[in-house]
């Protein structure tokens, strides 16, 4: 059954298929232009040229300069480098190094980095969000101290899709002379990301979330921002990220970012239409449903729903059997099946938290696919509620 059925992928916040144009751009760099960018000979020069071209593409896609782009192995590494890089640089400036500000709903890449930093003596303030996932700006402003080194607040949340007021955060950071890093892993390609418009000092992007290959990422670092590496080795990437550059991956990332930027006038609108129609029809066809996150300040591709009397994993598996791929919370936490820290932070009740799924749309999803999803959801939720020991029925 599974083999003949066309599967429907609606888990684009977990990862995306590589765009065929992106793959094409990468192919020559595996077997023909395979040189090491540190080599002086013609193979090395080909690699350097590819690297520079990709760096320019990345810079152009976010309004940055080429020398402000650091290539990493992915979003997690970019987040680690931003926060730890700033602290490492300031470690001898004791007046300005003890305190970090972040939010309660960051990705584990930021939160685990912060717990590690707490374990070695730093202090971290986790600013709360409201019931729609929007950061409390007042609390943020009041939490800035004389020894605050960095504010790291994500651009858009990976579970509930809420978009944060980064411009306001940037203004506060500038006023207080504190670096501001934002994790734009989920937002790039879905809403405009321009480092100067936003006023950020650092910004993380992950290739595989935007139809680029896995294993590549970007940290934008505004000129003048002082960082130290946290991985040590040769002097690659302005001394901030050692190791032989992943040229095919970087070329693919550059291409993916260019394409995403070009399509920004089209793809997000398409996803938004699907998103809103999906939400409307699900609410029409099922009771005891809740939309989590902000109703309008949300990513155009994010639908995060809680179904009462239903457990998320079971719903996911029933849909999977019907060929529909969605997620429960974020992909990263589903392996450990812990309660989502994001959903607790917005104050969602346990009986809703357990019944939460995330549908994340992609540019190639169609209205026909959403029809099928609405129908399958209705059937599957119905079936599970019938079976449920706590349903009203």
């Amino acid at each position, binding site marked *: 059954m599974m083999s003949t059925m066309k599967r429907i992928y609606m888990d684009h916040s977990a990862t995306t298929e590589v765009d065929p144009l992106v793959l094409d751009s990468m192919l020559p760099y595996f077997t023909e232009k395979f040189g090491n960018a540190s080599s002086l000979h013609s193979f090395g020069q080909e690699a350097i040229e590819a690297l520079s071209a990709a760096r320019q593409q990345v810079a152009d896609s976010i309004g940055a300069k080429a020398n402000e782009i650091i290539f990493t192995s992915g979003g997690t590494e970019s987040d680690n480098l931003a926060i730890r890089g700033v602290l490492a640089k300031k470690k001898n400036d004791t007046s300005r190094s003890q305190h970090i500000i972040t939010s309660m709903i960051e990705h584990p890449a930021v939160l685990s980095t912060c717990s590690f930093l707490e374990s070695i003596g730093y202090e971290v303030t986790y600013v709360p969000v409201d019931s729609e996932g929007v950061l409390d700006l007042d609390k943020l402003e009041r939490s800035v101290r004389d020894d605050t080194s960095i504010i790291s607040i994500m651009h858009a949340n990976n579970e509930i899709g809420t978009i944060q007021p980064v411009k306001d955060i940037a203004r506060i950071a500038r006023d207080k002379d504190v670096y501001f890093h934002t994790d734009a892993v989920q937002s790039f390609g879905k809403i405009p990301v321009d480092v100067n418009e936003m006023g950020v000092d650092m910004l993380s992007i992950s290739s595989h979330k935007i139809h680029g290959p896995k294993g590549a990422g970007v940290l934008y670092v505004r000129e003048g921002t002082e960082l130290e590496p946290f991985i040590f080795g040769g002097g690659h990437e302005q001394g901030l990220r050692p190791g032989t550059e992943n040229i095919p991956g970087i070329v693919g990332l550059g291409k993916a970012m260019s394409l995403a930027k070009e399509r920004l006038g089209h793809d997000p609108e398409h996803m938004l239409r699907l998103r809103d129609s999906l939400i409307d029809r699900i609410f029409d066809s099922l009771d005891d449903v809740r939309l989590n996150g902000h109703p309008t300040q949300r990513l155009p591709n994010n639908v995060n729903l809680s179904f009462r*009397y*239903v*457990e998320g*994993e*079971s719903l996911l*598996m*029933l849909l999977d*059997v019907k060929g529909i791929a969605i997620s429960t919370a974020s992909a990263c936490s589903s*392996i*450990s*099946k812990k309660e989502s820290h994001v959903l607790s932070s917005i104050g969602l009740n*346990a*009986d809703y*938290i*357990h019944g939460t799924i995330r549908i994340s749309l992609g540019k190639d999803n169609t209205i026909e696919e959403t029809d099928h999803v609405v129908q399958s959801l209705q059937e599957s939720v119905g079936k599970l509620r*019938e*079976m*449920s*020991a*706590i*349903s009203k029925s």
Partner: protein
Amino acid sequence: MYSRKVIEEFTDPKNVGVIEDADGVGETGSTVDGDIITIYIKVKDEVLEDVRFKTFGCVVAISTSTMVTQLAKGKKIDEALKITNKDVIDALGGLPEDKRRCSGFALAALHKAIEDYKERGTA
């Protein structure tokens, strides 16, 4: 990750439902855990004539629930009490290591239902 058998049992569970005039009812879990299993039994001549379940929970909770009802149904009570967690897991073709946490809930609910039946008898 899940065995084919788990997915089969999960998508097409047997013995779902409530026994309105049950001789015993057992419940385990809580909404905080995200798993609640209720098992209903109908007993005749010390034989579990009918065993049904209602489960709010994950794939493991649902597939172990239906498997426990299938293994227990038709058995004598003392035979049913001999069913082990391993029997349930084996009948499901195995469970992923990290998913075994809630694999015992359904069996526990059956035990509670039998206890309930016995208590009613002595009452």
